[in-house]
């Protein structure tokens, strides 16, 4: 199936059907998530109303890691199998991943100031997420720096794969180091330590961000494919 959608024409046919569905699901999940976050979830017993920042900060952080990982996997597939759509995916997804990382960093600072008394600390989690943001920006700059598009894509792919070393550092930083940032509340191995009244808006916003990312990534991928076709058309 993956090789089938290496054909841009077949991919566009799939994308045309999938994009409106993802936009609709994003609108529904985000509306529900925003409602639950503000009107149907309790304030935290320690943090008060600022806990509502969690419903945008944590999903953005999850997306920052997920998007980078997906870009690195696509870059590897593109390098090894010369999968055309996979090669273009990383370039399409990079601004989206950078946006989620920026939202995570800024919302984190706005949460940290009232809670910790500091906009920023150089602890392991914050520093590694900042490095992740630099990897996103560095990737976009590197790919754009080449006149030869294919060389830029290949160079960017290597950068993405090397940068994967930072992803487990981000994830496990709160376990490996003594950090100000709190440890994970949701793990695969244990029941969530977070109350359902807070878990519902958190997961709704995460689903909304995921669907929105999917829809926008497809749209950006289509743009990349159209752009290439236009280049060929204009050259002939």
């Amino acid at each position, binding site marked *: 199936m993956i090789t089938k959608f290496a054909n841009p024409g077949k991919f566009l046919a799939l994308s045309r059907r999938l994009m409106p569905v993802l936009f609709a699901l994003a609108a529904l999940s985000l509306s529900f998530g925003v409602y639950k976050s503000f009107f149907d979830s309790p304030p935290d017993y320690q943090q*008060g*109303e*600022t806990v*509502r*920042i969690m419903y*945008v*900060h944590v999903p*953005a952080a999850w997306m920052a890691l997920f998007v980078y990982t997906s870009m690195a996997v696509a870059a590897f597939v593109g390098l090894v199998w010369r999968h055309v759509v996979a090669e273009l995916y990383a370039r399409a997804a990079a*601004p*989206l991943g950078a*946006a989620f990382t*920026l*939202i995570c960093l*800024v*919302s984190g600072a*706005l*949460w940290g*100031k*009232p809670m910790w008394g500091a906009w920023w600390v150089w602890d392991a989690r914050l520093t590694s997420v900042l490095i992740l943001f630099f990897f996103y920006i560095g990737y976009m700059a590197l790919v754009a720096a080449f006149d030869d598009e294919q060389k830029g894509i290949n160079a960017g792919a290597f950068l993405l794969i090397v940068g994967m070393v930072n992803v487990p550092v981000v994830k496990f930083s709160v376990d490996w180091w003594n950090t100000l940032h709190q440890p994970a509340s949701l793990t695969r191995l244990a029941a969530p330590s977070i109350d359902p009244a807070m878990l519902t808006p958190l997961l709704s916003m995460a689903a909304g961000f995921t669907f*929105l990312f999917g829809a*926008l990534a497809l*749209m*950006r991928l*289509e*743009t990349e494919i*159209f*752009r290439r076709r*236009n280049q060929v058309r204009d050259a002939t």
Partner: protein
Amino acid sequence: MTDYTFYIAGAWGIAAAVLGGLALQTFCAWRRAKK
């Protein structure tokens, strides 16, 4: 009780602005490329 409205509005506002702006840019570029 401390008023945290600025921080909460700021966090959600930045998220909405960034994602909204990116969605708009994505849509405009897609429309332009499709022609």
